[in-house]
């Protein structure tokens, strides 16, 4: 048995029975990372020495009877979640040397639960992208085919889970950045409800859309991670004071009584690959066989979602990224001896091209004379999208769709065409605009052997229903059991 291949819940069972130690598990994952990292390029920072120390203390805790579902479990963390004394770069030149003096709340929670942080993983710079090609450090490769992108922006998280270079990961999702790479890498990924998981210590991209969430090898692991990271945090003013249910208590007796909405607009999407469409239709059959009732629904404002999203996300980004001025932390161009020149040169050398493009779009949309036409209008359209979902959830419990319109594309294929790249988030970004939860589960493989994902979305704080459907679907299929050959 290769320990690095274990799921979180299987590893936990073995740790609890003392059949393995956390040290053995963590060492196995570290060896795996060093064996395949050259091919996958998932990690920015590998923290093996600290991980081994933490594994040893986890073993001590276990032997004295203190074990949580995450004690001694090695996890990777997207490199925009602050980890105390562990470099956090956002895959950007401007934060290349940044060592956070504090932990994000999710990291504090993972550490309290005894989890072992094994390293920080790659992403599109400041989470802006859908392919991890915008990383200022290196592109990550899809473990299923190294010539293909892993998706993004949490591409390092998805690839590290798919390639067994960790047992689970935390990413962030502003327009699909957890769900889309999960789909492309054949793993499970959840964007929780806005306000469900604290964002204290998450480097901000678009504050009204950003959410931290887990990526994992199966649905149960995803629920276990959600149990630990969810809940109110007084350090995050958008965190919602609402009790956290036990997400891992998933009923496994089928889907009777659940109504699933299938939005007709999604099938009419230009650029939807017939293979993806077929995989989702097959998934619908599996779900119906388990007793769920499927109904056609309509989200008529879907056609405006990408445009509204890019105005809102870029506007918020231009404001959030104004803080990188070379004064208090991060990169500074020290050759400039005039303040304004220092600002400009620092930001121009520190940020990558896509980040600059979005700052410029956002600044333009917020500038005098354009605010009403762009940001104001997009915020109104956002209301229409929210109302679409509210109406649909009157007649169904959850909505299903493809996670992405195609399976992964080749590295370099869309890099010079930002608009086409933006359109690849068409199915996922509505959930961010509406603040609702969404999960991606593997639902098939394309003819060239690349994974595809099924997205399930639900009402605010209805993650339990997503887990129910995702788990029952997963148990009736075997896509999650397949592993890439590396």
């Amino acid at each position, binding site marked *: 048995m290769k320990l690095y291949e274990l799921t979180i819940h299987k590893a936990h069972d073995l740790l609890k029975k003392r059949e393995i130690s956390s040290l053995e598990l963590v060492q196995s994952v570290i060896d795996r990372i060093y064996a395949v990292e050259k091919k996958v390029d998932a990690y920015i920072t590998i923290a093996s020495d600290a991980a081994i120390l933490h594994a040893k203390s986890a073993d001590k805790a276990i032997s004295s009877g203190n074990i949580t579902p995450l004690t001694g479990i090695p996890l990777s963390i997207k490199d925009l979640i602050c980890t105390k004394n562990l470099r956090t770069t956002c895959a950007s030149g401007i934060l290349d*040397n*940044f*060592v956070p*003096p*504090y932990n994000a709340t999710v990291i504090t929670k993972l550490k309290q639960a005894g989890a072992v942080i094994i390293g920080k993983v790659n992403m599109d710079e400041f989470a802006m992208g859908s392919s991890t090609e915008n990383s200022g450090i290196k592109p990550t490769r899809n473990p299923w085919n190294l010539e293909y992108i892993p998706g993004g922006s949490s591409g390092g998280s998805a690839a590290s889970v798919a390639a067994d270079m960790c047992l689970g990961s935390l990413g962030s999702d502003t327009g699909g950045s957890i769900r889309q790479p999960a789909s492309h890498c054949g793993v499970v990924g959840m964007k929780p*409800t*806005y*306000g469900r998981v604290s964002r204290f210590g998450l480097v901000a991209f678009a504050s*009204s859309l950003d959410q931290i969430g887990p990526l994992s090898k199966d649905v149960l692991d995803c629920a276990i991670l959600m149990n630990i990271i969810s809940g109110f945090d*007084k350090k995050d*003013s*958008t965190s*919602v004071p609402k009790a956290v249910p036990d997400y891992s208590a998933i009923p496994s007796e089928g889907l009777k009584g659940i109504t699933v909405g299938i939005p007709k607009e999604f099938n009419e999407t230009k650029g939807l690959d017939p293979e993806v469409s077929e995989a989702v239709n097959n998934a619908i059959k599996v779900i119906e066989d388990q007793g769920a009732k499927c109904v056609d629904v309509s989200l008529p404002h879907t*056609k*405006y979602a*990408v*445009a509204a999203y*890019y105005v809102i996300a870029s506007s918020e980004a*231009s404001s959030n990224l*104004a803080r990188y*001025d070379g*004064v*208090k*932390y991060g*990169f*500074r161009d*020290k050759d*400039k*001896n*005039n*303040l*304004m020149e*220092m600002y*400009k*040169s620092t930001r*121009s050398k520190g940020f990558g*091209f896509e980040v*600059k*493009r979005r*700052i*410029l*779009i956002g*600044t*333009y949309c917020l*500038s005098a004379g354009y605010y009403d*036409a762009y940001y*104001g*209008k*997009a*915020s*109104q*359209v*956002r*209301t*229409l999208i*929210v109302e679409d979902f509210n109406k649909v959830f009157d007649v169904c419990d959850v909505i299903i769709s493809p996670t992405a319109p195609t399976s992964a594309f080749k590295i370099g294929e869309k890099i010079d065409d*930002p*608009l086409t790249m933006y359109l690849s988030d068409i199915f996922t970004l509505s959930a961010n*605009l509406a603040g*609702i939860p969404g999960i991606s589960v593997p639902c098939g493989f394309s003819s060239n052997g690349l994974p595809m994902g099924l997205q399930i979305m639900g009402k605010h704080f209805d993650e339990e229903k997503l887990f129910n459907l995702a788990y029952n679907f997963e148990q009736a299929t075997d896509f999650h059991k397949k592993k890439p050959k590396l």
Partner: protein
Amino acid sequence: MKITKDEVFYVADLARLELDEASTEKLSEQIGDILEYIDILSHADTREVKPTSHAIFLTNAFREDSETEESDVDTVLLANAPEKEETHFVVPKIIE
């Protein structure tokens, strides 16, 4: 509705970015395409529609204005400073 190079320069200045000739050219084209696509929003009927700035309804999260924990200036607050002196951040001269 292509955005001109002058407009890109103007917006870049607002955003405290400097661009070379080649990137300005490329960006004015790409941003133009994106703005053209965004124009689809003008087809949406938003008369009487209130804007949404946050998807979850939350009222202000107030707290008492009291000291919580003290951070050490040298080892925490100034630890990442590109340039510092005693307990201050150092920046280039502001007033000529």
